[in-house]
């Protein structure tokens, strides 16, 4: 018997990619990268961070998906491998959502997690 493994990369949904491209254009970085990172803090210990940059910082792992270039620093990647970045829109939407298979627990607001 084999079990399906989550791909060890970071992916982005069409919905999220559309919004990222929109934000990039608004900030004058139409050809920029979406920096996806983790930082210490938040209720559960780790917090997601999204940032738009002109280019990927040196040493980052670079992934291109749905026409968006994602850049992730090596340490954050350990906690983010397999994550799908989605976008939850509408009146009750949450905005960008991290579907992170490594997260064992998340805080109420969903921006902080622990592994």
């Amino acid at each position, binding site marked *: 018997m084999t079990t399906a493994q989550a791909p060890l990369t970071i992916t982005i949904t069409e919905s999220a990619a559309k919004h990222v491209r929109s934000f990039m254009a608004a900030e004058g970085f139409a050809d920029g990268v979406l920096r996806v990172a983790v930082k*210490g*803090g938040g209720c559960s210990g780790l917090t997601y961070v999204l940032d738009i940059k002109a280019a990927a910082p040196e040493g980052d792992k670079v992934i291109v998906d749905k026409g968006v270039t994602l850049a992730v620093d090596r340490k954050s990647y350990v906690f983010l491998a397999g994550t799908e970045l989605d976008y939850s829109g509408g009146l009750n939407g949450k905005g960008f959502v991290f579907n992170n298979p490594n997260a064992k627990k998340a805080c109420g607001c969903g921006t902080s997690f622990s592994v």
Partner: protein
Amino acid sequence: MSSVPASTKALREGAGLAVRPFGVLWITGADALDLLNRLTTNKLESLPDGTSRATVLTNGDGRVLDLLHLGALDAGYWCLTSPGRAEAVTEWLDTYTFGEDITVAPRTGQVSVLTLAGPRAGAVFAAAGAPADALAPDGLAHAAIGGVDAVVWRYGFGPADAFDVQVNVADQQAVREALEGAGATTVDEAGWEAHRIACGVPAHGAEYGAFNNPLEARLEWAISDDKGCYTGQEVIARLQTYRKVQRLLMAVRLSGPAPVGAVLRAGDAEAGALTSVAAQPDGSWAALALVRTAHATPGISCTVEGAPGVQATLAIPATS
């Protein structure tokens, strides 16, 4: 449990001097305070040079990794940890550092900390050439003691001021002699422990640690309730809001000796357990205990398992 040396009286009536086995870290970097603010319970958005603040390092479940004393000086932060906890604190900070500009340098073993405490501590300090009045409460500064440059912290410990004198290990003897010459009485570890327990001050491994949250140890004074998110905040805020703290630190007056860990019984109910016990200079026995919230009422009398005939009377710890 141990007998209490007469020198402990100095901590009550004069000025006692004890070598303290704190872990010592020197933390620098432009992002150091921000990271500490995100990972610990107290508000650390700013910590001006010459000031100190206590804060609790908690995990995501709101359990205590350690109570830290941070002091800003010389463009960095001295951090005093509980004995034996410096390495664990360093590893925790390293785990949660993602590209931030922060360096945590171990100083345990290189730096020695002597605590001068008691009602005459300030006077002894001044006699040693370092006027205590020049140092604000919860402040720290350089001071020359016995011809040695020391970093001195001032804070409240029990009913009186205490001063932590931080020096290079090689200078410890000279500073100690200078303070003894100014009237301080050296207190050994057992003597300090008896004083700590009498003052109701909790310690890592006994009253707080990975086995509980900081509210059980009455560390609210090191927790900000309006700073926003930090690791463990959701759990701690929920415990406070819904009054779900299961146990509370209580001071205990014992009618005789009893072992640490002994269960306290209120009638047939298990009320809690002794966490620290020490004989006092007047021949009495003082203890600390973590007591179920339902029984954590001053004046309640309990029996002590394993100590036949000994009565335990609960009180609110003096420092709470």
